[in-house]
């Protein structure tokens, strides 16, 4: 059984938003529904100033608050680690949206929350998520943690990583490279 995860090196990101629209196209989403976003941080004063750009998407938490609060089991976690939404079971209560510490869920046209699906249905056969594939700066690495030879397994071993809002106990499956600066 695979265990999917993602590694993001935000220091490489230049904020082009290709990841967002490539994903929208893969999943045929309307303009306002997007599965990944960027957070911008400006630090210092002119001319000693730097900018950070951090891509954020569903963390596919191992301890997902969104799942805990979902009354119908519409939000569920697969054995391979993907947190997904069964639209047929969703009542649209938006409790998961309130509960997600990462603000990654959005309502779609049909009153069902949406979020990054880790490209379920596309990656199992070896496809790369478009947000990964399109990125000219190779900010993201996606792969299987159970495969010691996967790029992500190797990189995770090699690099110093952290998770966003880890103190909330969500155990995200999206890891971030610690920046050297």
């Amino acid at each position, binding site marked *: 059984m695979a265990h999917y995860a993602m590694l993001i090196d935000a220091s490489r990101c230049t904020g082009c938003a290709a990841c967002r629209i490539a994903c929208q196209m893969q999943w045929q989403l309307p303009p306002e529904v997007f599965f990944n976003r960027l957070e911008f*941080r400006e630090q210092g004063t002119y001319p000693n100033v730097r900018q*950070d750009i951090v891509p954020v998407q569903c963390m596919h938490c191992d301890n997902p608050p969104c799942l805990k609060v979902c*009354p119908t089991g519409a939000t569920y976690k697969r054995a391979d680690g993907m947190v997904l939404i069964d639209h047929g079971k969703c009542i*649209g209560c*938006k409790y998961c949206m309130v509960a*997600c510490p990462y603000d990654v869920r959005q309502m779609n046209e049909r009153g069902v929350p949406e979020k990054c699906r880790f490209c379920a249905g596309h990656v199992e056969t070896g496809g790369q998520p478009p947000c990964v594939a399109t990125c000219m700066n190779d900010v993201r690495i996606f792969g299987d943690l159970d495969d010691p030879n996967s790029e992500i397994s190797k990189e995770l071993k090699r690099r110093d990583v952290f998770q966003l809002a880890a103190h909330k106990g969500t155990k995200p499956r999206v890891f971030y490279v610690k920046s050297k600066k």
Partner: protein
Amino acid sequence: MSRFERWMAAPAAMVLVGLAGAVNKIINGEHALGTTAAMPWGLLIAGYVFFAAAATGAGLIASLGHFSGKPALMALERRGMFLALSLLIPGFGLIGIELGNPLNMIYILLSPNFTSGIWWMGFLYSIYLALLLIECYYSQVNPTNKNLKMVSALAVLNKIAAVCNLGAIFALAGVRLFWNGYYFPIYILVTAILSGAAALLTASYLTGKRAGLEIEPAIVEALGKIMAGCIVIAAAMTALKLYANLQAAEQPLRETAAALVSGPLAWRFWLGEVGAGMLLPLALLLIANFRAKHTFAAAVLILIGVFAMRADFIAAGQIIPQVVVEGVQHTAYHVYSATWTEWALLAGATGASVLMYAFAEYKFTLDAEAADTFADPECVADLTGRRKLTV
């Protein structure tokens, strides 16, 4: 058109407005609401919490009458039950319309998730509704039924559980700091009783007034005291919570408290929650020593104030952007402004509540002593007609 019908025109119109809102929500879905991905819960959820909590509060007072043996409260038992029903059903209506896919509710049964506060809410409030229906039924058909005692006892537990769980939905969501902890389950319980008492007093006063009857001063005083007591507790809790939050180590907590005290929620907080919900009614109650007219005024103010509390509380939990990436400068607050649809739905629920209650007063016997008078349609018909009715 009878006077009753004429008099009911206002709430009926509100219901029509509400229906327009409902149609718009059903057609345009989420876009009909002012809610956003950042603030997914808005006025409809606030409205739902208001109605459900008030229904539970009214129900609890009704039970209190049942078990306390205090005549003043006992007199309120039936009215309380019917009022609770008239509040609960429109409340359900609100949340039903707020839900994107209410039809999928079946999965609450088929694949229940016991860690979900909303699942428990569905469970506890369904039971509440069932128990209320049973209680109301027996109160009309067979008030002396032996089983009723047991039902009532169950109902009390159920009501306390339901209303505390309502608070827990927020408290246990886990990530919105402002909502976290044991505070809100208790706070909601207290303010539920406050709004339940206020609703009961308002309903009783108006009903009595229409009938040309003075409300039993003991009832006024009992409800008045409950209200005053709840206000004092709620005020103390609010003050403590805000004080603690303003000093808190966590920045989001400080910012949320600031949003209420001096930020975008301040006007509603100070005018609605504090002014209309606490200071004014408390002053009215204490100064006038629970005189009927003043207590009634206080109750109306409390209803407005408690609605502000619900709206503030829902908004406050979400208004501060969550810290996902340390150090990111967000706009200070998320913005949410309710759409006409949301206001229309709230008006609709209020109208429906009034209609249902009035219908109950008109149709059933809610008042042991004045049963005859209340059964007289002419009397009920003028419930809110401001005409010449002075005691």
